């Protein structure tokens, strides 16, 4: 009885995801498209849970629906009105239906055949063998911060580059809402801020032995920061002094580089932690990486260099 229910649920989820993806690309009106994409992100989180990837689900829920949504909606507010209501291209739609169906069908068949024919040994056995020496019990955290820590280092580097790119384009592109629309909103911000810190710390701590860790925690804190910011809170650092920003933004990269090169001083190779201290190394790097990811995501959502004063002209 359970099996058909699960299959039905999967089929429903797949159909919804396809429809939302179609809406995100072809719906009339950009607002509708953006909202469809945000719902798509939320439902992807459900799909990750169905695929036994709860770590990914946590990050997707915070990033796909939270950070990306805030970013897209902020950008939408800055686009000219004529762009927003323009209908999607009808001619392309008609052609699309035929071409796309053929392409998708052919592609799906080819892909499924090839993927299923290939042997799939995976790296599960190797990771399981190395896990006792990695310092944590959650294999995903072990891969991210020990076995493939190099990837994480580069990933934080890419985020930093993205922030540098947006800052290079000029000052912030949108401001927090000019006047507070509801008296409940600032209260919500104040109420939620400690909540976000608490939940992020919990997710980070959990990452050592269960789904969670630096990425979901950082994403959650970043999304929380964005929410509190748009609820009218003003960060204590402004664009008048960029040095604190630079240090905070590069914190994760610097910490990971110090750890990677520092172990070299004791005659080890890049990112080869001492086995008995590995847990401590990972915890320290996770805290740094989570804080860094949070502030990097927040900076990305600002849409450019922070202003000298937060919304000073809007204060009544």
């Amino acid at each position, binding site marked *: 009885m359970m099996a058909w229910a699960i299959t039905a649920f999967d089929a429903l989820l797949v159909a919804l995801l396809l429809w939302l993806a179609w809406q995100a690309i072809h719906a009339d009106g950009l607002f509708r498209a953006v909202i469809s994409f945000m719902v798509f992100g939320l439902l992807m989180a459900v799909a990750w849970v169905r695929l036994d990837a709860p770590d990914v689900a946590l990050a997707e829920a915070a990033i796909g629906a939270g950070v990306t949504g805030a970013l897209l909606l902020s950008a939408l507010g800055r686009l000219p009105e004529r762009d927003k209501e323009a209908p999607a291209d009808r001619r392309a739609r008609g052609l699309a239906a035929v071409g796309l169906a053929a392409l998708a069908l052919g592609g799906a068949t080819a892909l499924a055949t090839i993927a299923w024919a290939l042997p799939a040994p995976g790296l599960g056995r190797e990771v399981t063998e190395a896990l006792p020496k990695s310092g944590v019990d959650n294999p995903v955290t072990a891969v991210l911060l020990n076995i493939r820590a190099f990837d994480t280092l580069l990933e934080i580097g890419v985020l930093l580059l993205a922030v540098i790119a947006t800052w290079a384009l000029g000052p912030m592109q949108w401001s927090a809402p000019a006047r507070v*629309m*509801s008296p409940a*909103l600032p209260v*919500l911000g104040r109420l939620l801020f400690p909540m976000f810190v608490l939940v992020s710390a919990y997710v980070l701590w959990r990452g050592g032995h269960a789904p969670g860790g630096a990425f979901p925690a950082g994403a959650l804190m970043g999304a929380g920061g964005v929410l509190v910011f748009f609820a009218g809170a003003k960060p204590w650092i402004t664009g008048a002094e960029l040095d604190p920003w630079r240090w905070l933004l590069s914190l994760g990269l610097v910490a990971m580089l110090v750890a990677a090169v520092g172990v070299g001083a004791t005659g080890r190779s890049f990112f080869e932690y001492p086995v008995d201290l590995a847990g401590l190394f990972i915890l320290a790097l996770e805290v740094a990486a989570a804080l860094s990811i949070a502030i990097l995501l927040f900076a990305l959502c600002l849409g450019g260099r922070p202003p000298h004063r937060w919304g000073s002209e809007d204060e009544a």
Partner: protein
Amino acid sequence: MTALAWVGASLVALGVPFFLLGTLGLLRFPDVFTRLHALAKADNVGLGLVCFGLGLHSGSLAHALKLALIWLLMVIASAVGAGLVARAAIARGVKPWGV
């Protein structure tokens, strides 16, 4: 299943109609204010029943408290969100239906 689990499962089942009716209202009600009114039923009562039922079903106090927290946050967020949407609609000059 224990008696507690049965009670939990029936509470979840009881919560589902609230979501159905809330969604129906969202689709069929005439203007933004009445739609918000319909949504609140799903968010507050429907989710409350589902969370309460799941908490009982899990049989663990820690899980039940986490679910209660989820419900509490959801209620706060939906109240503030509904208020913002309604205020934005009034600011744009949307007249309530039938007024």
